[in-house]
């Protein structure tokens, strides 16, 4: 298992390196990075002072070195908007998003496995057709619109749920999680269904049935573990995509997470914070990919024993 993991860690780290370098060069490629950091109204004096202060007048390799050293110390400069440390702001916002994403993916995966397996057991049955249509719709609804409709119906119309904010009981979670949930859930139901149909039509499932195994044993004992590989992969990709949703959800519901932080720092041109948020997200995604690989290895003996090339 360890050679496999080592190989995967190395290959997952490549995107991380690209992102770290990408952020650096993107800022330099577009001309003067000062333009990115400072408001458009800044005077030439302010620009020069800022440039010298940040070391933008140094050579590119020197700047890169400083950037890497700072990044390693989680020092991304200070926010122009609040004057706080950008790294600190991002770390404060991070747990909110992590909780939101964690709850969402837990619900999405559990729900999708149940619904998808049920649909796959009888392909083309009524259950299957309803599940397919619902999941396709769920995967194609724009999340921002779904959130607004939720607010309109349950918040404004019925007055059942709070329209925004993070204060209150468990009910504050309902709309944000539901919004974040629909797309991963819709996609995962289809993936689970697809790979379960394949698994359930495999000869080993026939053999299990020829041993007299009951449906529950066939589905959960034999088919599901074989079907889980594509599901895990897609679930990993969808978790990455949750960042997209988090930007929307946190903006609409006013959650102080990393998504809202990013969009605010863009709209108010606060590059230090944006850069910190992007890099932290990249690291999180790196960790997530490793986690997915570990799950692959745990569920499939062939992956565990594969000799790394």
């Amino acid at each position: 298992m360890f050679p496999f993991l080592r190989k995967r860690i190395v290959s997952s780290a490549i995107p991380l390196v690209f992102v770290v370098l990408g952020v650096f060069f993107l800022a330099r490629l577009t001309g003067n990075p000062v333009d990115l950091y400072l408001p458009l109204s800044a005077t030439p004096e302010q620009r020069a002072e800022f440039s010298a202060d940040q070391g933008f007048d140094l050579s590119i390799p020197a700047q890169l070195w400083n950037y890497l050293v700072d990044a390693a110390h989680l020092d991304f400069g200070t926010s122009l908007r609040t004057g706080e440390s950008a790294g600190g702001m991002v770390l404060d916002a991070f747990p909110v998003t992590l909780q939101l994403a964690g709850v969402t993916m837990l619900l999405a995966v559990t729900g999708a496995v149940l619904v998808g397996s049920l649909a796959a057991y009888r392909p083309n049955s009524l259950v299957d057709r309803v599940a397919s249509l619902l999941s396709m719709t769920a995967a194609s609804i724009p999340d921002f619109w779904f959130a607004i409709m939720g607010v309109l119906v349950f918040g404004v119309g019925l007055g059942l749920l709070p329209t925004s904010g993070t204060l209150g009981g468990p009910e504050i979670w309902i709309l944000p999680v539901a919004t974040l949930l629909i797309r991963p859930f819709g996609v995962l139901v289809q993936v689970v269904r697809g790979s379960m149909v394949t698994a359930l039509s495999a000869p080993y499932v026939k053999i299990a049935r020829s041993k007299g195994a009951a449906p529950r044993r066939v589905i959960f004992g034999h088919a599901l573990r074989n079907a889980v590989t594509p599901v895990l992969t897609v679930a990993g990709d969808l978790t990455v995509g949750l960042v997209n949703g988090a930007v929307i959800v946190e903006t609409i519901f006013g959650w102080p997470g990393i998504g809202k932080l990013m969009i605010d720092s863009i709209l108010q041109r606060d590059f230090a914070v944006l850069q910190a948020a992007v890099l932290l997200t990249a690291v999180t995604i790196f960790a997530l990919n490793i986690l997915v690989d570990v799950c692959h290895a745990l569920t499939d003996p062939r992956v565990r024993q594969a000799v790394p090339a």
Partner: protein
Amino acid sequence: MTRTAAPAPTGTDDPALDVEGLCVDLSTPLGTVRAVDGVSFSVRRGRTLALLGESGCGKSMTALSVVGLLDPAARVTGGAVRVRGSDTLRLSPAERRKLAGPVLSIVFQDALTALNPVQPVGRQIGEAFRIHRGLSRREAREKAIELMTRVGIPEPRERARSYPHQFSGGMRQRLLIAMAVALDPDVLIADEPTTALDVTVQAQIMRLLRDIQNERDMALVLITHDLAVVAQRADDVVIMYAGTVVEKGPVRDVFSAPRHPYTQGLLDSVPEHAVRGRPLPAVPGSPPELSAVPPGCAFQDRCPLVRERCVRERPVLRPAGEGRTTACHFAEELTHA
């Protein structure tokens, strides 16, 4: 395993498996076709029956209907499959499951896909004991190791923890057989059990099947397109063509004096019968599409004896000598040929 001590007397008229008038319809993209049309046969304990035919003739479908593993596009539309006095086609799924394993069992062709790739083989072999006998995990494991020993897996205790991909093709086929005979079924169906293997291993597997059949007094239904296997291993043979039975009878009689031109054609195409310097005779043409089986005899397009009656009237199975039947209007001409 307890049953080996007292084999049921061979020769009783009670068949272990009795299939009668089995019909299977198959949904295809543009219409329903009859894939199996009125197939009947029976086999007693200790005997081997071969279902012989080209691929697509419906022999595998017949086997799958017998064990109740048909796919949703296919549906049994008529007939009966009797084991232990009850018609499995009329049982509820739960009742049917009680028969799966202890009464009816099946071995597939491709042992790699027939074994669950993510479960240790020992667990898969022991599963039948857990389902039907309620044994504990540990007891089932011991049973599995016994079976692995029986089918000739070296170091079974260690190997029980291995996964299917860690075995060779022949070993996997042995594991599959172990799994199928775990509960001493009355009837074992082997669907092309050696097709995917190389020749020396094929012989070993066939020998293993025969030995286990003898020691447990099972009825064996051997599905194959290999004439040599039928000649060596089967007592009776059912020859299928385009979903129907064309000839049926004891192997020795059928092969020495076929009563159907299709059987004759198959036998002629065996290299041993060939004359040096002449092309190997083969049955000309290919089987009809199931959606377009002509009215009259299904074999008419390829038959050397074809005449007007064959186009008009579908031949039915009729007696043709001791314990034999044929579905040819002009079987007698072959007899005297």
